[in-house]
């Protein structure tokens, strides 16, 4: 029992470090903001950084904990962003309190993305590996394409919907275009703040960490480690895969809400919601270490800030990402590299020990 206690403390300790790190970073940055020791460029990056951190943590649930590769994560972010921006735009002036409206927008964004997660997950999670990856990619692209042909307007008679253009909405002269196809949604209230972003990160962290250390989390990881064995001990594969997938989608939806309410105009372009974005999030997860939540956070922060702060490198930014990604994968996963690492690092550890004894 003594061994157990020590070990349990170790995981709790590790989680504490993660939480402490986030809170400390928040305190330092807030202090910098208060004293005015912060550039406007850096300030503008605070909410996006929070968005990417949430995306990275949530994708890690699917890639690291469930062990399936999803390349459509940006699609769920897109659903959350548009559902919540649409809601906020409709409710501007209807719900008096900005705080309440944003809170409801968050719930709606998360729920919409979560429901999409379930709807997409039911068919998709029957597939495995590469097939699952390509189909999630396909779904992400479909979501983006469909949003680009949506036109929604509102006038005295209620809502109008079209997939062609604004004119075919057939609105009265007093009508307002809410969703304008490729131009998206403009005039979303800018409710997102750094503080809200950090609170969302903390909530995401609590959910993931507590999920992993619970009965359901164990079932999810059992499926990851050996599906056939998990089935043989009576674990419902579909249920738990779907659970991980939809929780992850709902979190990505939250990130989308944060993203949408930080911009005055929201459009679905290949750059922000295409599969390139999904892959970008995957890069955060891989570089932070698959399954390593704290690593995801650090990777997301560094990879978002660094290129922006080092503008001179911006041409080489994606090139460097690509090389780092390949090198990291080879270093971490190639059997030869593992062998070499164990030999070399093992010797290093051994040397440390002997010097200590001496």
């Amino acid at each position, binding site marked *: 029992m003594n061994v157990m206690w020590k070990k349990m403390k170790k995981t709790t300790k590790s989680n504490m470090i993660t939480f402490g790190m986030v809170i400390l970073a928040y305190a330092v940055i807030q202090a910098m903001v208060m004293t005015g020791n912060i550039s406007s460029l850096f300030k503008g990056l605070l909410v996006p950084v929070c968005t990417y951190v949430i995306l990275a943590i949530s994708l890690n649930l699917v*890639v690291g904990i469930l062990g399936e590769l999803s390349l459509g994560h940006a699609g769920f972010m897109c659903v959350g962003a548009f559902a919540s921006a649409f809601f906020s735009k409709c409710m501007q002036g209807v719900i008096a309190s900005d705080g309440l409206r944003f809170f409801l927008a968050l719930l709606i964004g998360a729920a919409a993305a979560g429901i999409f997660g379930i709807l997409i997950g039911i068919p998709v999670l*029957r597939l495995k590996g*590469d*097939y699952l*990856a390509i189909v999630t990619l*396909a779904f992400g692209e479909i979501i983006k*394409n469909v949003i*680009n042909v949506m036109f929604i307007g509102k006038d005295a008679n209620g809502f109008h919907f079209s997939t062609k253009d604004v004119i075919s909405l057939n609105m009265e002269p007093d009508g307002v275009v809410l969703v304008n196809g490729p131009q998206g949604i403009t005039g979303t209230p800018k409710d997102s703040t750094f503080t809200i972003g950090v609170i969302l990160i903390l909530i995401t962290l609590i959910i993931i960490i507590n999920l992993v250390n619970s009965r359901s989390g164990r079932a999810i990881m059992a499926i990851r480690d050996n599906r056939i064995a998990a089935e043989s001990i009576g674990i419902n594969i579909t249920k738990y895969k779907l659970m991980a997938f939809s929780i992850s989608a709902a979190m990505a939806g939250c990130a989308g809400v944060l993203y949408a309410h930080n911009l005055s105009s929201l459009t679905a372009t290949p750059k922000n919601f295409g599969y390139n974005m999904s892959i970008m999030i995957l890069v955060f997860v891989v570089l932070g270490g698959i399954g390593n939540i704290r690593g995801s956070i650090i990777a997301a922060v560094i990879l978002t800030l660094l290129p922006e702060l080092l503008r001179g490198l911006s041409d080489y930014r994606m090139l460097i990402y690509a090389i780092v990604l390949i090198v990291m994968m080879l270093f971490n996963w190639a059997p030869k*590299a593992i062998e070499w690492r164990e030999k070399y690092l093992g010797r290093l550890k051994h040397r440390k020990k002997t010097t200590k004894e001496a």
Partner: protein
Amino acid sequence: MSFISYFINGVSLGSVYAIIALGYTMVYGIAKMLNFAHGDVIMIGAYVVLTCVSTAGLHPALAVLIGIVACTVFGIVIERVAYRPLRNAASPLAVLITAIGVSYLLQNIALLIFGSNTKSFPEIIKLPSLSLAGGKLTITGTTILTIVACLVIMAGLMAFINKTKAGQAMLAVSEDKGAAQLMGINVNGTIALTFAIGSALAALAGVLLCSTYPSLTPYTGSMPGIKAFVAAVFGGIGSIPGALIGGILLGVIEILGKAYISSQLADAIVFAVLIVVLLVKPTGILGKNIQEKV
């Protein structure tokens, strides 16, 4: 009449997809990996040909030959450096993520060398158009060449695999790597050869694609690449006739969807087709059923 014209354009686009899909399907069949960077090899091929023709002023045929050689070398190098070390990795995701990294690498190398501006691909296929039905239906020379090229490549590849020793080795490796090795087959060499052939075909596909749609950017290859993978899955991954059928069906669906439903939703339709196929018959039209061993 316009339907027939759309249909023929669809078959032509589908032929390009089929040629690209061959690369995917062969690599998937033999190395059991999704080479995400395959689409970007197409783009590299197109840039090489463009540079040879426009900048160096070489004869188009020579330029295409150089493009093929360049892509072949690229394919072999990528396999050797990035994929082979991960062949026995513990996680099957490792090599897929690396392939995504290679895809990004190729795009960004092209971006640095050629810039992000759209380059106009030179007209290198100079064949007369075919006029049918009293001038109501015109088929361009490029379209005809694309379809013919696809059929020739397909037939050539089938013959290569069924009639030559190297082709038989490929089949053996795709069935069972370990057993093939024991039979004295050079597994590494065979896989490298597969990448070489796939990449050479990608160069050809790049030329054909850019001859029909002559705007070239560093991202030109990625969408056709993904769609060609869809085509390979559609036809049944690992199957060469499957790549042909899947490619052509996908091309026709895409062009008809663009013409009759919505040009913005054409990609969505293609992806929806993939999803439906995978759900109804996960192994594709001509795919084999494989049961997991317990």
